[in-house]
């Protein structure tokens, strides 16, 4: 079988004068979690609508496990489980009635839906709640039920639009664990997110989308390492008599190192931007030791995806939200 589950080639879609998608291309391999990361209005929802056969692209192709969304929408629909951004549960129905409803729509055999209902409700911590009307559910429980309904027919591809939007921390983690479990069982997950930490924590691969174009594509680690910008902060003890001179001497010494790209002094702190943190750190430490710098604390941080976004798009993530929100 083709290991590529989602294949998108130069997809374009305009709404009047607005170019929602301006020729995006990507592939998602079987059993991977792929995240489309971008601010509101970047084109994420349009991409989801095309993959779920709800919107026709103007140009380009999109295939799910070899089935074209335009030529074979019925096949595509049977291969996906789509959970929209909004809560799409019905307050009048009980949890069990929801699952029964989707079992019928996806033509599941009677025995299969009962086992799967039990499994899914247990997996999402909803066991024992099946007889309650959803009207009385919390927001988190509704989202979990929504996700359970999407996976009832065990589709090879789950399409999740902003799966953790508006959820509290505990529920977010439950949802993330659930998505990881789906992946570990071999399901491919395509998700859209507005949250850096979600993309970072969850996704095997991330496409940064901005103004209808893909600005960067790769694993979160690869995207970060392309920046070559780890930061090492050295803080000297202010109580030491000559701490200012010592810090100045350290700055001069490390500025000469090959791996150091930039330094910045800020009070008792020295920020050193380096290419490879793991090689640079020992060199900086030995310089400090040679100069007997009175080190109070030392820390390093890797750039987050927000810096990655800034790097590839030339503007900050929040700015993108303002522009298109």
């Amino acid at each position: 079988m083709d290991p590529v589950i989602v294949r998108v080639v130069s997809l374009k879609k305009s709404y009047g004068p607005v170019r929602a998608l301006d020729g995006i291309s990507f592939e998602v391999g079987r059993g991977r979690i792929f995240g489309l990361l971008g601010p509101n209005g970047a084109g994420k929802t349009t991409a989801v609508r095309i993959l779920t056969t709800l919107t026709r692209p103007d140009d380009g192709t999109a295939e799910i496990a070899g089935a074209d969304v335009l030529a074979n929408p019925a096949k595509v629909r049977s291969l996906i489980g789509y959970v929209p951004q909004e809560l799409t549960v019905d307050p009048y129905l009980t949890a069990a009635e929801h699952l029964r409803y989707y079992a019928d729509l996806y033509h599941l055999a009677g025995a299969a839906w009962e086992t799967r209902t039990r499994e899914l409700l247990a997996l999402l911590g909803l066991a024992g709640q099946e007889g309650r009307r959803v009207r009385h559910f919390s927001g988190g429980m509704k989202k979990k039920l929504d996700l359970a309904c999407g996976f009832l027919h065990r589709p090879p591809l789950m399409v999740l639009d902003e799966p953790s939007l508006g959820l509290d921390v505990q529920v977010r983690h439950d949802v993330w664990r659930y998505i990881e479990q789906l992946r570990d069982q071999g399901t491919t997950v395509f998700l859209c997110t507005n949250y850096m930490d979600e993309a970072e924590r969850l996704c095997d691969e991330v496409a940064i989308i901005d103004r209808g174009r893909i600005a960067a594509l790769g694993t979160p680690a690869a995207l970060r390492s392309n920046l070559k910008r780890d930061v090492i902060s050295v803080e000297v003890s202010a109580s030491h008599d000559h701490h200012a001179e010592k810090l100045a001497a350290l700055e001069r010494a490390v500025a000469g190192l090959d791996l150091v790209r930039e330094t910045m002094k800020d009070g008792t702190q020295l920020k050193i931007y380096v290419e490879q943190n793991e090689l640079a750190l020992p060199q900086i430490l030995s310089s400090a030791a040679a100069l007997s710098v009175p080190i109070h604390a030392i820390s390093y941080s890797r750039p987050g995806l927000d810096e990655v976004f800034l790097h590839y798009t030339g503007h900050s993530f929040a700015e993108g939200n303002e522009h298109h929100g």
Partner: protein
Amino acid sequence: MGDFLRETKAQLVRWLIHTRREPFSMAFNLLNPVILLIFMGGAFQSLAKDFTGGDYRAYLLPGVLALTAFGNSMAGGIPLLFDKENGFLLRLMSAPISRASILLARFLAVNLNTLLQCALILILGLLFGIQIATGLTGAVALLFISLLLGFGVTIVSLILAFVLENHGDFFAILGITALPLTFLSSAFVPLESLPGWMRLLAQVNPMTYAVDGMRTLALVGWNGSVLAHMAIVLVIFDVAMFWVGNRVLRRHMA
């Protein structure tokens, strides 16, 4: 075919669960027709003697049934519009189901509701002593005619649900159509008593034909020519709405 029936049944069950778990909504829907029939019928009894020649409530019953069928059918698309607004419909449309099952399930649910409401009104009317000239068979025929009117109106409502962007517009349309269409018909007074321009409009209103047919059954008897006239007009109306709906909804649900 098996899949289609299963999809339709699942969606119909969902709508019937709504009806069952929302009994107050049904009660409120029944309130207006019952007030019209019992109170207005009683209040205007003597005034209306000139054209009814008897019980104004029996004269009013067909109008009230038509009004109920019309109102219930016209509002029938609203839950689909809510589904559209909150994403539920997107999810349905991404499932491997026939688009027609979405429409058929809602259509059946709306008309089952209409049948139930009209039957309750009829039973209440009989309990209050309203006499129907054609008896029990005639009463069943009244229900059937109410549905025949409701079918076409339901399709109009389903079209609106898909064409309109939000439920505010829908409620506005409901508000401005229900009352005028009722008065621009023979629901409460005979056609001949309406001023010329109103009579003209009433003559293109399918509700007029449904009411005329039902009134014959309620007051006179089995008058073949009136009933045939009514049946032809209502069937043409239903078929025409089906044709329009088929064209418009195919485009909107593609």
